[in-house]
């Protein structure tokens, strides 16, 4: 009986198993589950796709990659090795020393970050319609201009390219024209800057701003990369810069904010009257929007000491020369902010000297890790620095509430005072003054708002210096220095002039080997 049962069961099992076997003469198609799906061929046409392109701006707010390449290569920032800390495989040091090679670890990430964004923008620019298309074109122009600026050439893959298509590569000069064409289309189709939160949406004025920035640098971008040091600025281009800046002014949406720090502190979204284009961070109502948000704490934490109220990672410092380029009393150098300084001991601008924090209600000295008072000193060594060396920066002051910081500051990408300074420079480079504004009047209006003394005359190098003070850590110092022919000059902790070809970075090795159309930049 028992055996029979086993036999029958076994046969039944066998029969079913055979049928499963027969059923399983499979086509071996892949089944994709859950949150994953096969990428859609129509990608680029939905609003979510556009939101994802904006999301690509988030990465720019980090302390590394794009930001590091634009800033550490200048006099504004350096990342010293502090004994066992911050050597980081020489990644920061190499940028400051102008010794980046194609194997640099952040170079590849930056290349992928900007080009990935460029591709997503291309999908929207080429498959979207109406305003969305124009937004895509503006965003593509933004990312492409950064690729052009850093790498001196721009690869292009169309929205309909096949998986094995090798992207063509545009030279710097050709890329320039291509980007301008995108911007012209965007200017024509984008709406005027609105009110409220609109500064993190593409708008006509942002496109005009970007076009002005490109035209101001046109001499650089059109130059032969092999002889990149002297540039001839065409008066027509300079006049076009003035016209574009005047158009931004004429929109009536922007004016200089009364307080410089309104442009950067936690409530800059509402307090500032200068923000043309920004990226949202975790503020109220903005957290976790489609495309995510930028994390502004990197900008704050990269310099502050572990034991300060905003416990940072005690890294980057500015150079003493750059620090000393500010007048005493210039609010851009040092300002105490309500709702921050009296609660956290931190000031806006630069952190120098003895640092303080609040122990309940009493102001106390911050100590370093070995228990000595924490005094940030101006001297700093790229290779051998101790804990307290170097003056730190505090560009994005965070509101200090209930023992924690709110990181809701908008991340600034384009700002009206930059537009005004572009106009001043264009006039100084031969454009006609308009609207009663001269290079001197513009520079003085900007200085006056921060409490710096008025100038009686401005030269081109005064304008460069003023741009430095006004726009530090806004990722324009490197192109500024290049345009003024000063990028290769020695700075603190880079004692010798660097080679002229260093005005563009090398294309990362992995990228060169992935695309036969990419040729390594001259000199590398």
């Amino acid at each position, binding site marked *: 009986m028992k*055996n029979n049962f*086993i036999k029958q069961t*076994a*046969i039944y*099992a066998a029969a*079913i*198993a*055979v*049928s499963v*076997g027969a*059923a399983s*003469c*499979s086509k*071996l*198609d892949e089944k*994709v*589950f*859950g*949150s994953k799906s*096969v*990428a859609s061929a129509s*990608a680029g046409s939905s609003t*979510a796709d556009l*939101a*994802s392109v904006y*999301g690509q701006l988030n990465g720019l707010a980090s302390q590394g990659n794009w930001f590091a390449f634009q800033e550490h290569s200048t006099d504004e920032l350096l990342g010293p*090795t*502090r*004994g*066992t*800390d911050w*050597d*980081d*495989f020489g990644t920061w040091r190499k940028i400051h020393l102008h010794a980046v090679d194609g194997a640099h670890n*952040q170079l590849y990430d930056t290349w*992928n970050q900007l080009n*990935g964004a460029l*591709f997503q923008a291309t999908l929207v620019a080429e498959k979207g319609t109406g305003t969305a298309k124009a937004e895509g074109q503006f965003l593509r122009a933004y990312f492409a201009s950064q690729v052009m600026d850093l790498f001196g050439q721009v690869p292009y*893959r169309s929205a309909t390219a096949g*998986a*094995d298509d090798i*992207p063509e590569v545009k030279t710097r000069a050709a890329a320039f024209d291509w980007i301008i064409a995108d911007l012209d289309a965007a200017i024509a189709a984008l709406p005027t800057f609105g009110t409220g939160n609109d500064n993190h949406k593409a708008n006509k004025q942002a496109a005009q701003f970007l076009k002005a920035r490109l035209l101001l640098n046109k001499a650089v971008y059109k130059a032969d990369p092999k002889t990149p040091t002297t540039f001839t600025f065409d008066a027509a281009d300079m006049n076009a810069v003035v016209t574009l800046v005047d158009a931004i002014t004429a929109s009536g949406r922007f004016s200089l904010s009364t307080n410089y720090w309104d442009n950067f502190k936690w409530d800059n979204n509402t307090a500032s009257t200068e923000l043309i284009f920004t990226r949202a961070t975790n503020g109220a109502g903005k*957290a*976790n*929007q489609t*495309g*995510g948000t930028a994390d502004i*704490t990197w900008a704050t934490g990269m310099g502050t000491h*572990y034991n300060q109220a905003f*416990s940072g990672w005690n890294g980057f410092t500015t150079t003493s020369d750059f620090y000393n380029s500010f007048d005493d009393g210039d609010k851009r150098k040092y300002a105490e902010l309500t709702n921050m300084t009296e609660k956290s001991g931190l000031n806006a601008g630069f952190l120098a000297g003895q640092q303080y924090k609040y122990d309940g209600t009493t102001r106390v000295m911050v100590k370093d*890790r*070995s*228990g*000595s008072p924490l005094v940030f000193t101006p001297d700093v060594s790229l290779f*051998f620095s101790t804990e307290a060396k170097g003056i730190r920066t505090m560009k994005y002051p965070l509101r200090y509430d209930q023992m*924690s910081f709110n*990181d809701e500051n908008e991340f600034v990408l384009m700002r009206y005072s930059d537009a005004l300074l572009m106009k001043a420079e264009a006039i100084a480079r031969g454009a006609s003054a308009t609207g009663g504004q001269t290079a001197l009047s513009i520079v003085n209006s900007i200085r006056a708002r921060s409490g710096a003394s008025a100038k009686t005359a401005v030269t081109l190098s005064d304008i460069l210096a003023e741009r430095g003070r006004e726009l530090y850590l806004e990722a324009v110092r490197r192109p500024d220095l290049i345009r003024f022919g000063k990028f290769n000059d020695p700075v603190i902790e880079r004692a010798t002039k660097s080679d002229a070809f260093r005005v563009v970075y090398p294309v990362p090795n992995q*990228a060169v*080997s*992935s695309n036969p159309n990419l040729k390594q930049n001259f000199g590398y």
Partner: protein
Amino acid sequence: MVEYQICVFCTRLINQKLPIMNFKIVKSSFVGLFIGLLALNAQAQNKTVTGKVLDAKDGSPIAAASVVAKGTFTGAKTAADGTFAITVPSSVAKLVVSSVGYSSKEVEANGSVTVSLNQTSNQLNEVVVVGYGTRKVKDATGSVVSLGEKSFNKGVIASPEQLLQGRTAGVNVTNNSGEPGGAVNITIRGTSSVRSNNNPLYVVDGVPLYGGGMTGTGISVEGSTTARNPLSFINPNDIENISILKDASSAAIYGARGANGVVLITTKSGKGKPSLTFNATTSVSTTANRYDLASPQEFMYGIKKTLADAGVDVSGVGGNDKGYNTNWQDKVFQTAVSQSYNLGWGYSNSKTALKLNGSFDDQNGIIKTQGLKRMTFGLKYSNQLTSKLKLDVTLNQSQVKNSYAQVTNNAGYQGSLIGAMISYNPTFPVYNANGTWYDNQDGNRNPVAILEGYNDKDTYNKLLANVALSYKLTDNLTYKLVWGTENGSTERLTFVDPRLGSAYSQGVINIRGKNYTGSELAGKGRAAQQFLNQQSNLIEHTLNYDKTFKNGNSLQALAAFSYQKTTDYYRASQRWGNAGATSLSTDWNAYTGGTTDVYGDSTQVELQSYFSRLNYTMKDKYILSALVRVDGSSKFSTGHKYGTFPAFGFKWRALEEKFAQNTLGKIFSNFDVRVNYGVTGNQEFPAYASLALQQSNFTGGTSVITNSNPNLKWETTTTAGAGIDFSMFNGRLSGTVDYFDKSTKDLLFLISYPQPAASADRWVNLPGNVKNTGWEFSLDYQLVRPAYRGAFGWDVSYNMSFLKNRVEGFGSTVVNTGEVSGQGLSGAYAQTIRDGYPLFTFVMPTFLRFDAYGNGVYANGAKDQLQGSALPTFNAGLTNSFTYKKLTASVFFNAVTGFYLYNNTANALLLKGSLKTAHNVTRDVVYSIENSINPGNVSTRFLEKGDYVRLGNASLSYAVDVKKGSFIKGLNLTLSGQNLALFTKYSGLDPEVNVDKSRNGVPSRGFDYTATPRARTITFGINARF
């Protein structure tokens, strides 16, 4: 029990969605066929043959000899007194009688018979398990090693690879750390794949395991923990035999999954009269080696000295001395007691064999909170239902409970448990006066707080079952159907105490684009939940033809179809809350401060194969084996799904030649020459690699995560090899020499995709080869042959292998891996893969010395230079076994040389500069001339040779006298030790270490970073048979 299980299988099968079509087929043909066959058999007439099997030399009875009705499956085993009884169809004319170590014999199947078997001079007639069948050793054309229980390593064993370590040539087993059930790295004949994993295919009782990790990586607060060994569910006590298919001619029967070799595990089956076995062991483990850390006095001296040297004001230094003397290693490590129990019962008769096995293991780690508890149940049943139809059922159900400590493989500045244990200030107390953990509010973590405030456990259930039906269609032709299933599920829960403070829970959680910010998380406890489910089903149809011709030549042929479908489900979520709690809550619902969305992903992979094998034996001296397997995988695009994997092997048994008998025959008692060639594949890369995939984000929108490659195809390994098997001195010395040349091409690799593109990389077949060549030697020598039963005997068994690895045709491609972790080491790496060098070659500046200021001086302008590789070039194992009267003893040494290790622990923590920030270091660092501002760059300063010799295993066993007729049939007492001595110049704790330091998904080898140290273990065991 048996019936119940079969019913479960039926239900499972019925629950599968079967197309209506196939039900019809089932009804009309298969059921009919089987019922018909059954009816035929019911009518057959039977007869019974009885007899006795004896040793021809001394007439002693041979127990457990196999008696099989020729041409059928019907068989019986002899009892302890050599007797047997077998009922066979009356049509059967002959019985085949065989036993291990004897030549088989055929006798008439009539009445009562006495069979005398001749001992074979060696073990050539022993049967080895090869894929889809067994072969006699003398007929095996490939390189197959078979290890039985007595060759296994003894002691605390968490997974089957540990049984093998060092015991066979060409198989390199590395325990990645000393964690109980920790990951084990096993490579057979070298590392051939760059990107895919190099683990062999495991086949348990005929069912290929899917293999993926089952424990999930821990969602740790800082750094990630390595998944535990997926094979820890197997009860090592239940393993009868492990066969390793080393060469391609054998492994190619597993086609696309054979490239890294195949490990065939056979579990125990019932034999002879009903018997009950019981084993129990108790083990004591201690740290084999500890860090030589500075004492409080040395520590304070070191801080003062370094600060003074750096010109820093030392007036505040005294504040670092809190006056206690805490040995943090004592607080973290323990003497661990582990236990293991195993109960087996089984029998066999002419028709059925049954084996039941149950075990319980409680393994405790030398880190206080690490451990593994395992319960297993095994059933192996076979039934000759009719003279033609045979049923085999194997079932293994196990539950493994892992307990983890926060030992991570990529901790940064604040370190994991081991990092904190090394560097935490030794003058700090463990607890405050009120019993809370001491915290100096300096951002450093109290190791005891990490230990006690962290609870990380998982429960892993696994069912592995297969049902096979064999039907003899004719005398020579057998059809076999196998249905197997592998069903595993894990739940892992991780809890972090809120009292660990801000240092623990400040980080932002970002899940698929959505941020859960620091301000929400600060000061709160954290909880993470992970579920993993894996379901794999296998169906195999095989036809076996086995014919011995009148001239003695024989032919075996196999044709088969196999289909396996595996689905993985993973989901996880995290919570926070419990602020202000005064104890660690391990209740998921207590964390009410907030929760993440549930995230996770599922994958499904199908593998479909057609294969065939032919073995032909001519005159017992030329043996040819040829096979081909066609494998299709869902992982590739249409047109590239199928790969063809052919192989052949040839063996020449030289001494069967007349002309050789007077030449070679004078020296050798056996001399076989083998050559083999084969192609195998590797499909161990992620599913969907050929597709452009997008993932939806929690913030809306999607991100494209991979680019497509419709031309992706199989990575293949071609191996050619040759070998000699010989024995001398009438079998006292036997050995094997093998050479192989293995080349892997079309390497599957994730590389840069030309930008601009939706994501950074895509999978391609990289040009170039990874080449492995090697020599393998193994020798067994009966140094002292016992003169009589109970006299002194001494066997020596030695194996060694030489291995060369090289990357060729790689062009200018450079792939860097081996991320170096620690403070000030972001972005650092130390290993590279490039043309003309072995895989896992280290690359870094060459450190020369410290200059007069104590700063590092490097060769060649501190430029990167290629250094040695992490892959060993030489492995050896030496076993000495002794028998004397009731005692047996064995001592096993294992040597591995020719490789380098990167001491990331020293690079990150054992620097002079650590003292400056009041972190403890080893004593040698306190007194070193290094300047405290000298950065710890990656350099050869931390690269060391890893050569070692280990006294890996020693055991002493005593067979207690049991009275004849007593209810106890046998009693053995065993004392064994693991990791008893280590001889090495490596400065870290143990050179057998491999912390996962992969970079961009490219695996690394040979990194030591705050791994769980290895234990020294003494085990006492008792083994009783009833």
